[in-house]
């Protein structure tokens, strides 16, 4: 383990978050078992109050998770000088087997927590808590993932051993063939460009149809989900290359650095926002027939779809700007 302030900060916050989520899951279980909207008992009243607590905790969690996602990448990146062969975050993430799973879980949990808050918001709009059971079942699913994330992160940092000089044995301990992958394998450029363009086009089209006609919600959500994956692959495959203007630098993390004007932050923020709100539209589609939601849900979905479309639009502009306007050419 490396005693670094940022690592300590990440571990402390993930511990706090795990604790709070576990706490709300316990009450969630109680709500699942004992919830009875028709009852006026004291228990029911206290459970109704508890729902406020749980949604507050989850909203804070989402905010903290977003910053911690970036802080995680930043920390991992700044640790790269400590490992032989690691040039940036990619190398540090491969020092042990826990790096990439942690990052992946962080992303997945962010999206799931966002979807939970969307369902929660929709649920609060109905007077009879129509989605309460689904919402808490979802929370039960989310809790083990968040706990797993904290555990993986802990192991990732605990298992880190920096390559530093030992004081007097004078051994050169850095075998060059330790095999840290400092580059990631990337998908071929031209097919990826086509897939990216098609996915973005279809997402925009279905989103516009949804906003205007209130149809194809599920399709739009699926496309938003795929756009998330396609965008990540495209970033590695070609978008980053254009930003760096280097034909072999595929790192998706270096765009977060000052050399590239922190362009990565708005890119990733739009990417995450676009996919969460886009998928949120789809998650809510089955609930439109519920009487207490039928008045509010379409408006809420339209706002979500609009947010998603705008995020995807900004993302696409930011991503394609270097592709179109720099003199750098890949082909």
């Amino acid at each position, binding site marked *: 383990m*490396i*005693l*670094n*302030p*940022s*690592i*300590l*900060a*990440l571990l*402390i*916050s993930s511990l*706090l*978050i795990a604790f*709070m989520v576990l706490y709300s899951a316990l009450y969630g279980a109680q709500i699942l078992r004992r919830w009875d909207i028709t009852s006026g008992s004291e228990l029911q009243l206290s459970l109704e*109050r508890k729902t*406020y*607590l749980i949604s*507050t*905790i989850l909203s*804070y969690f989402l905010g*903290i998770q977003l*910053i*911690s996602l*970036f*802080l995680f990448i*930043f*920390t991992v990146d*700044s640790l790269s*000088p*400590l490992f*032989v062969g690691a040039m940036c975050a990619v190398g540090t993430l491969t020092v042990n087997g826990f790096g990439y799973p942690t990052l992946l879980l962080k992303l997945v949990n962010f999206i799931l927590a966002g979807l939970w808050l969307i369902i929660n918001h929709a649920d*609060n709009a109905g007077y009879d808590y129509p989605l309460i059971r689904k919402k808490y079942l979802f929370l039960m699913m989310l809790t083990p993932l968040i706990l797993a994330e904290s555990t993986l992160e802990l192991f990732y940092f605990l298992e880190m051993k*920096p*390559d*530093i*000089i030992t004081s*007097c*044995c*004078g*051994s*050169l301990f*850095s*075998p*060059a063939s330790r095999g840290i992958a400092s580059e990631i394998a990337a998908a071929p450029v031209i097919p990826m460009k086509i897939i990216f363009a098609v996915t973005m086009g279809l997402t925009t089209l279905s989103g516009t149809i949804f906003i205007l006609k209130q149809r194809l919600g599920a399709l739009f959500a699926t496309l938003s989900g795929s756009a998330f994956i396609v965008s990540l692959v495209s970033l590695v495959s070609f978008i980053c290359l254009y930003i760096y203007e280097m034909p072999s630098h595929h790192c998706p993390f270096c765009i977060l650095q*000052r050399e590239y004007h*922190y362009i990565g932050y708005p890119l990733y923020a739009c990417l995450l926002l676009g996919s969460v709100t886009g998928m949120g539209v789809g998650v809510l589609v089955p609930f439109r027939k519920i009487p207490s939601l039928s008045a509010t849900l379409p408006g809420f979905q339209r706002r979500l779809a609009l947010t998603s479309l705008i995020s995807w639009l900004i993302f696409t502009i930011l991503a394609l700007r270097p592709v179109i306007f720099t003199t750098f050419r890949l082909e």
Partner: protein
Amino acid sequence: MPHTIEKQRHIIDFTLASLLRRRGKNGALFTVYTLIVFILASVMFFTYALKEEAAQVLKGAPEIVVQRSLQGRYAPIPLEYAAKIRGIRGVMAVRPRLWGYYYDSVFLANYTIMTAESIPLPPGSIAIGHGISRMRRAYEGDTISFTGVDGKARNFTIAKILPQESQLLSADLILMNEDEYREFSGLPPGLASDLTLKVRNPKELTTIAEKIVKALPDSRPIIRNEILRTYDALFSWRGGLLIIIMSAAVLAFVIFAWDKASGLSAEEKKEIGILKAVGWETSDILFMKFWEGMTVSLTSFLAGTILAYGHIFFTSAALFAPVLKGWSVLYPVFRLTPFINPGQIATLFFLTVVPYTVTTIIPSWRAATIDPDSVLRS
């Protein structure tokens, strides 16, 4: 959307007014909070700035230094080694270095003596660092005496005082001519302190180092990146250690915040009761509590960070430099170059604001779910 913003604006308005009404209680919280942020931020700014300084300094260091170890300890290296190393493919140049330490028993300080290569010195004269000049009140043209290895004192004329800009490196430095240094220190001809290498392709550094160890098993090549790595780990470790020690203070602060947040006075309870009675919803009160937390957190965070910035970069970390810098009689006087990045700020945020916010969630929720009926009746 404008409606939502308008609503939040009114809630913020109300929150600010209510915070100002309870100046004493919030003032105490603000002071403690600011102090915690100040201490942690100072530690972080200082270690990062030192790390950066070390990295800047090492940029000019040789790519590989070869030492010799005898009995597991550092020993002077024979000059024939240089010839052997020069034969390795990829090595552009090998230069022997002569340097050592000198203990001044009158002033109880350690100096570093090196042979002058870039500065031409007339026979019998030396160049000294600013720190030595300041301590011994010796200036250009003065004569200064040092005791050599044989116990006899030798006089040197000061030809030059090294410039102040490089104080971190040269405060305790003495530059001497090679033959004079050998005579002074007793290092026999044919031996050097260590060898420095220039390498054509930086990717070959490890390969070259491995070849050197194979050809000369008693040598110890040190690559510049290894030194950088070690400094990096060392400064982070020092900073992390201090933060762990201070986590007791953070914990105390969190308990204090918990106590402040959960111990609502009768008046505050009444206020929430009235708000709910006039139509505020539980979620509105939660928003109010959220803005309250944000106001206190961000104000203290900003104040603490600015104070720490001043402390580190204007007063050169007057409060705890001795712990972090290390121990030495000849302190270089230097001002750190400000070096702050978003990651540091985010780390600081996670060490202070996040624990505070998480602690106050449950008390705020308790306050927000107060039953107006029971409060107003009591």
